[in-house]
């Protein structure tokens, strides 16, 4: 069983799509290939990978309620490629939007369903994720928290000879628990879909989100963009004004 994961994010590193791809990958067994489509130059490489594949998983960001433009172009290319080479694939999708409601991925799912119908491919379903950017930031925070823990262990060890500072580990465990809790819906659905992929089973469409109340999410998102705009200088260039 060969499964090809296609990371459709235009970002080279630290994309939310790569994060969700990594989570799903843990639950998929068999021959697994990871590749990406960032531009037209990637088409040939990806299509080669799809020869002999059983399953294809598109992992992509939601762009203005739909599929990003560079992926629409790739889908047209893939349709022709599958027709010309009599290729049949099971198609799965993991999409993530910045807004908290996973249901905002609904149109994107329908577009992929239509694509499968036109291309003679098998639509197997997907997971639509809300709050993808925040979950990706949580991943980065996990690395930061781990760094802080290691630093505090080193300082405690060198200064006091205590190499297992209990308080630092308790704080770290709480931070880890919070990150896992916020990811709970994503982990449950994406792993479940990973198991379905391993068996080439249909999964259906599920929507999930960062595990946080919507009103609180908006406050956190506003704080995030305010901080980034302050750091990047947009706040001093007519941040919220008409241009």
């Amino acid at each position, binding site marked *: 069983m060969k499964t090809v994961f296609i990371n459709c*994010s*235009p*970002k080279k590193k630290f*994309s939310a799509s790569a994060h969700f791809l990594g989570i799903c990958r843990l639950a998929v067994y068999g021959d697994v290939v990871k590749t990406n489509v960032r*531009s037209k130059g990637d088409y040939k490489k990806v299509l080669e990978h799809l020869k002999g594949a059983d399953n294809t998983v598109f992992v992509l*960001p939601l*762009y*203005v*309620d*739909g*599929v*990003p*433009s*560079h992926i*629409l*172009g790739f*889908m*047209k290319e893939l349709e022709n490629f599958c027709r010309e080479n009599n290729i049949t694939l099971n198609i799965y999708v993991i999409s993530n939007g910045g*807004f*908290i*409601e996973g*249901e*905002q991925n*609904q*149109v994107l799912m*329908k*577009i*992929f*369903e*239509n*694509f499968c*119908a*036109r291309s003679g491919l098998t639509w197997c379903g997907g997971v639509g994720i809300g709050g993808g950017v925040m979950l990706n930031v949580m991943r980065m925070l996990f690395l930061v928290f781990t760094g802080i823990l290691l630093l505090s262990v080193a300082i405690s060890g060198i200064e006091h000879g205590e190499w297992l500072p209990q308080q630092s580990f308790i704080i770290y465990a709480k931070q880890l628990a919070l990150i896992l809790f916020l990811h709970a819906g994503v982990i449950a659905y994406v792993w479940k879909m990973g198991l379905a992929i391993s068996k080439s089973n249909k999964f259906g469409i599920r929507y999930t989100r960062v595990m946080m109340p*919507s009103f609180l*999410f*908006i406050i956190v*998102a*506003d704080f995030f*963009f*305010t901080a*980034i*705009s302050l750091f*990047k*200088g*947009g706040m001093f*260039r*007519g*941040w*919220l*004004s*008409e*241009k």
Partner: protein
Amino acid sequence: MRVIIHDLGKQYDGLLKNKCDCLIRADGRYAPCQGCFNCWTKHPARCFMGDSLQEVCRIVGRADELIIISENCYGSYGPNVKNIIDRSIGISKPLSTYRGRQMHHKLRYGMHKLIHVIAYGAITEDEKETFSLLAERNALNFGFENLQFTYIDNIDSLESCI
């Protein structure tokens, strides 16, 4: 201001120019959105990529009436038109609010009057339904008070639609 975005080819520019204040031809000679959010956080309403779409959100943002003419692509705009829409997110602000009982971004240019999406090309019933839903979502997202979705099976009937 009335703005038309289309992917019909240069030969339609003459016809469409007479029908609007600003015409944007989706010729595909521009890069896709990189999702960096710099048009919100670094240089507001301006893309870091210096191509013909660098300030397209300022045009779309000022449109009272936006007409989008696009080929059907699985129930979506074609890639060239979708690229323009993707690169237009600067018409909103990075801060969030609720619209239509869902989270959306606040609008930089306020509410607009009408978005009219005209689809053409081979289309199935499912794709038509999806395209109509996509237009509805975009209207909500970009703050258009009214939405019109039209499918034309013959491009000759375009003039009567606009």
